[in-house]
């Protein structure tokens, strides 16, 4: 079983707190009954209250748990659906922040990204390509086109100077990349992201949701090594912090991994020599080059089973609440 929105499962941790609060209300109820009937309060009345409260609390808690699981989007099993799309539209979303100039991958993170982009585009000549760059802001360097001359020109011009706003704002880049697909074509939309993951802001959940809604997978390529390296400056030195020490930039792959997983994409490491080939191979499979009729496997959403369970438990809870227990216990 997998979950589309696993982050919602954290809400399950709040349920014990709810249980404690309900237990407190039971104790308060017992005390109220004792106050009402005083010395006549019989043990069986108290027992009924306690057992009823326990059963109702368990049923209610399980119902809520079931709802939380339903919200998290449980999926299992796969079905084949005919894929009516053919060909591909690829937006290369490239981080052009200064950290991409680090040379822990030869010739540099940005330089190696450029080579992989060219290799992938050459392997997929039928695909249409676009390039979106981002730093503190995002910009469309070349819109979706099959003009190889314009694409090559844009790839050659990739540099941090293209966007002046400092920073690394990936959400803006992703949102702009999603808008770069013109729509109205039977092609598969795909975003290939090149970044070292050093984004100041987290990735907006709304943007991820939008990508998922539009079935746009993000194939994330981590640019850099865990050891990292220094950022070269225009005067031939390296960037230093306020204490005068060189700034070492590593990689932060967790966000990139989550983004790829959440959108149905894959994660790659630019430091691996086979990345270009693997990426192109995976993209070729999506595009379905040479295939007549394509089928793709789609996970089956099973949230409704958990909602049904929750409704059943709530109904049982109502029945238990409204059955006279006197004489049964």
């Amino acid at each position, binding site marked *: 079983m997998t979950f589309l*929105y696993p982050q919602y499962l954290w809400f399950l941790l709040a349920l014990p707190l709810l249980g404690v*609060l309900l237990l407190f209300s039971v104790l308060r*109820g017992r005390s109220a009954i004792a106050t009402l009937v005083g010395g006549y309060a019989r043990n069986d009345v108290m027992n009924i209250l306690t057992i009823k*409260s326990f059963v109702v609390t368990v049923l209610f808690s399980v119902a*809520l748990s079931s709802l939380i699981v339903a919200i998290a989007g449980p999926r299992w099993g796969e079905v084949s659906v005919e894929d009516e799309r053919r060909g591909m539209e690829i937006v290369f979303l490239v981080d052009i922040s200064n950290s991409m100039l680090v040379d822990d991958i030869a010739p540099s993170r940005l330089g190696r990204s450029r080579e992989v982009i060219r290799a992938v585009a050459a392997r997929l000549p039928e695909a249409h390509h676009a390039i979106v760059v981002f730093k503190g802001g995002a910009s469309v360097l070349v*819109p979706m086109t099959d003009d190889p*001359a314009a694409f090559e020109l844009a790839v050659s011009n990739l540099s941090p100077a293209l966007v002046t706003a400092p920073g690394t704002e990936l959400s803006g880049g992703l949102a702009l990349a999603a808008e770069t697909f013109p729509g109205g074509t039977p092609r598969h939309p795909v975003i290939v992201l090149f970044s070292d993951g050093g984004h100041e802001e987290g990735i907006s959940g709304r943007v991820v949701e939008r990508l998922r809604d539009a079935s746009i997978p993000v194939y994330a390529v981590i640019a850099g090594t865990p050891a990292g390296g220094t950022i070269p400056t225009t005067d031939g030195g390296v960037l230093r912090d306020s204490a005068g020490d060189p700034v070492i930039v590593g990689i932060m792959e967790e966000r990139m991994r989550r983004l790829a997983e959440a959108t149905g994409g894959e994660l790659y490491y630019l430091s691996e020599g086979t990345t270009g080939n693997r990426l192109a191979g995976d993209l070729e499979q999506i595009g379905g080059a040479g295939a007549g009729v394509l089928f793709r496997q789609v996970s089956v959403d099973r949230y409704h089973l958990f*909602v049904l369970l929750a409704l059943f438990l709530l109904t049982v809870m109502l029945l238990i609440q*409204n059955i006279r227990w006197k004489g049964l216990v």
Partner: protein
Amino acid sequence: MWVLERPGYMLLLLLVPFLVYLRHFRSNRGGRIAFPFTFYGGEGFRAPVTGRSLLLRVSTLVFWSAVVLLIVALSGPTRTVRERIFLTRGLDIMVVLDVSPTMAARDVQPVNRLEAARAVVRRFVEQRENDHIGLVGFSLEAALRVPPTLNHDLLLDSLDRLYLMEMGDGTAIGMALALASLHLQGTEGGDKIIILLTDGVNNAGEISPEAAAEVAGSLGIRIYAIGVGSEGEAEIEFVNPEDGRTYRGTVREGYDPDALRRIAELTGGRFFSAAGGGTLEAVFNAINTAETAERRVRVQVHRRPRHQLVLMIALALLLFDVILRRLLVGVAP
């Protein structure tokens, strides 16, 4: 448009009145104490409306709303969006637009030649939904503004940002045509055309318009050459982007109709003369009618499930109910 993926589950709503009866109206259901006091021959006690009783009523409403929402979520509320998918490729078109200073001549309504050209190109692009369209601007030099693309919003945005003299003072028609041909050369489209809009004669660049037209012709690209502006003198007024000063003057020379006709004929295209805004519009209408491609369209329905939001609201309501009923009011289960 909204649809339900599993509408059969909505029948569960029929059970709700029964459950409401069971919980709130069935007599002898326990959980409450009956007071057998009544006035003689009169009515019994009526519980006064207090804050607690109001909270209980709110809580009841909240609980049953949550149950209804759960049933709705179970039915799979889904938003559908229809998208028109073009199964055939349209034309590949490059619009080559002169932005030399003379395009500021005010002999073409509504403002000047450039604005008139911009307006008709905009309307033309809006009608060519399935065509890959690009834009080249030129004057002393030529530059690709947008490669052939279906992203017409970006194209129109770039068209709006073209300004007079942004590429110097001159008219490099040959360079512009060569650049447009270069960017049409590698595209997949079967039919490729260049629409050239100019008001001058070629006086810059290292490629002659005829040579560029021959190259375009050899690549199977047709050129529609449009001469913009009236014969005779015309007033011009424009702001030089280099010094920010406004220049006014008179234009005496216009385009060379013979040269433009030759360019068009070399490629199997056509030459048009557009002396006014209306004529320019008519020219584009003629091109629009002449250059058509077969269109096969499929409607694709995208489904966007929206049950998650409904479930979240239901969950929040259930929690709200239990907090009100059990913790605030202190109702026993």
